[in-house]
């Protein structure tokens, strides 16, 4: 948990309140959960473009050689072949193979790295880096200098290129520095919605100017964490603290694609042991047979009533017009198409085990 007694505020807090956002605590931060309403913001993002304040996420800069700094063994993804101006998603594990955090590593220069971590885990992530990096590394936490605005949606390229010529040339999971409002601003083609989108890392104390210039475009509306959660869930992205945590192994979380077993990394031995013995649990998708939605921490049952797992996230899916969710279940029951129940001892509803990807037609790679 956060060591701060009070909720942290992003530089846009007053602007969110002015726009009529509903503010809620999220990972120690006071964040906008919605403005016009989650369903409207969801549709706006899938069809046009939305602006999200994601300044609560943490940013670190590490300078040093990949191997000598120790960075390579702290994270799971392969970085040795990552080109400068590209970024890659992966995890940072504990020795048991549980996930301390999921993160994106950007290669700024051959020996300079920009790491983006979750807002709720900044302190423990910084601690892990400080403990594990060698004396050949320089570590800086730049969270409170770096605001992060996510512009997401099929029209985001058209909107952003009006302010930032050249941004339209960015390929998926690449980034560059652009002159934007007189500053050298890192912009990456990344996101958490399943749509075409960009993440703008701008100076903390000028965040409002960037927010307002992007909001001036009539195709852009603000969106909150509520819509973001529905958008990410429909495309199968995990949320730290739900699908990912220190008690769920990276293999159980299905991070396999983002783990390089050809290199040494913290947690590797535990994961190999688990591979040999069999991974006990698996994250699966759940599609409700009705509009009733699975909810985080509800139980998952067989039709006969045996408990086989727990819901890690759930929501109504505007795309499917049904409840959807993700559950961590006993590997033996992880069969797509299998009928299951979700709910509580008192009240249960029917669902089917499915892929975690509920929405496939996004503009992500357009």
């Amino acid at each position, binding site marked *: 948990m956060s060591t701060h007694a009070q909720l942290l505020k992003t530089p846009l807090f007053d602007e969110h309140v002015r726009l009529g956002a*509903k503010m809620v605590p999220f990972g120690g931060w006071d964040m906008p*959960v919605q403005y016009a*309403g*989650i*369903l409207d913001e969801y549709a706006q993002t899938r069809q046009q473009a939305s602006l999200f304040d994601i300044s609560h996420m943490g940013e670190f800069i590490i300078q040093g050689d990949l191997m000598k700094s120790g960075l390579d063994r702290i994270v799971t993804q392969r970085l040795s072949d990552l080109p400068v101006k590209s970024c890659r998603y992966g995890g940072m594990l504990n020795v048991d193979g549980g996930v301390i955090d999921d993160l994106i590593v950007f290669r700024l220069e051959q020996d300079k790295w920009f790491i983006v971590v979750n807002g709720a885990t900044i302190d423990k992530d910084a601690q892990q880096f400080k403990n594990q990096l060698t004396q050949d590394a320089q570590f800086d936490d730049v969270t409170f200098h770096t605001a992060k605005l996510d512009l997401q949606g099929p029209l985001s390229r058209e909107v952003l290129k009006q302010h930032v010529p050249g941004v339209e040339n960015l390929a998926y999971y690449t980034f560059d520095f652009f002159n934007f409002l007189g500053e050298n601003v890192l912009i990456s083609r990344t996101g958490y919605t399943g749509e075409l989108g960009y993440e703008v890392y701008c100076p903390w104390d000028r965040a409002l100017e960037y927010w307002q210039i992007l909001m001036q475009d009539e195709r852009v509306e603000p969106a909150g964490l*509520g819509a973001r959660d529905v958008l990410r869930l429909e495309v199968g992205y995990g949320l730290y603290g739900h699908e990912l945590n220190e008690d769920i192994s990276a293999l159980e979380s299905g991070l396999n694609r983002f783990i390089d077993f050809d290199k040494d990394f913290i947690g590797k031995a535990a994961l190999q042991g688990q591979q040999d013995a069999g991974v006990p649990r698996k994250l699966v998708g759940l599609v409700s047979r009705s*509009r009733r*939605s699975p909810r985080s921490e509800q139980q998952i049952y067989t039709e006969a009533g045996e408990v086989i797992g727990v819901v890690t996230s759930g929501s109504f899916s505007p795309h499917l017009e049904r*409840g959807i969710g993700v559950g961590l279940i006993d590997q033996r029951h992880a069969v797509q198409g299998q009928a299951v129940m979700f709910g509580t001892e008192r*009240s249960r509803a029917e669902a089917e085990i499915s892929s975690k990807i509920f929405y496939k037609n996004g503009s992500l790679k357009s």
Partner: protein
Amino acid sequence: MEIEEHLLYTKEHEWVNIDGDEAYVGISDYAQNSLGDITFIELPSVDDEVEQFEELASIESVKAASDIFSPMSGRILEVNEELEENPGLINKSPYEKGWVARISLSDLEEKNNLMTSEEYEKFLESAG
């Protein structure tokens, strides 16, 4: 926040519109606004008996699941089946098109346990 004058309210933000020994029940504008976009409702069955302040229906918004409690005791005469396909009616029209159930009241005295619109307004102010 809109508060209809002629209704009685509970602390859980349900309303009841009493007409003789029958009543319509639903949730207040404050309740629908707090819940956000409503995506699902599980209605009671006609002829079910409900008790005052006991569960009447379950309701879900995009973000959360919660219960609707019955403002008064009685027997369910009718439910608003339109809500099953279009639960967002509760957001759009909480006091009219978004009604939840019509109840045959078993104890009119129970209305003394409810708040008038003025009392509910004060209750919201003190809670807010």
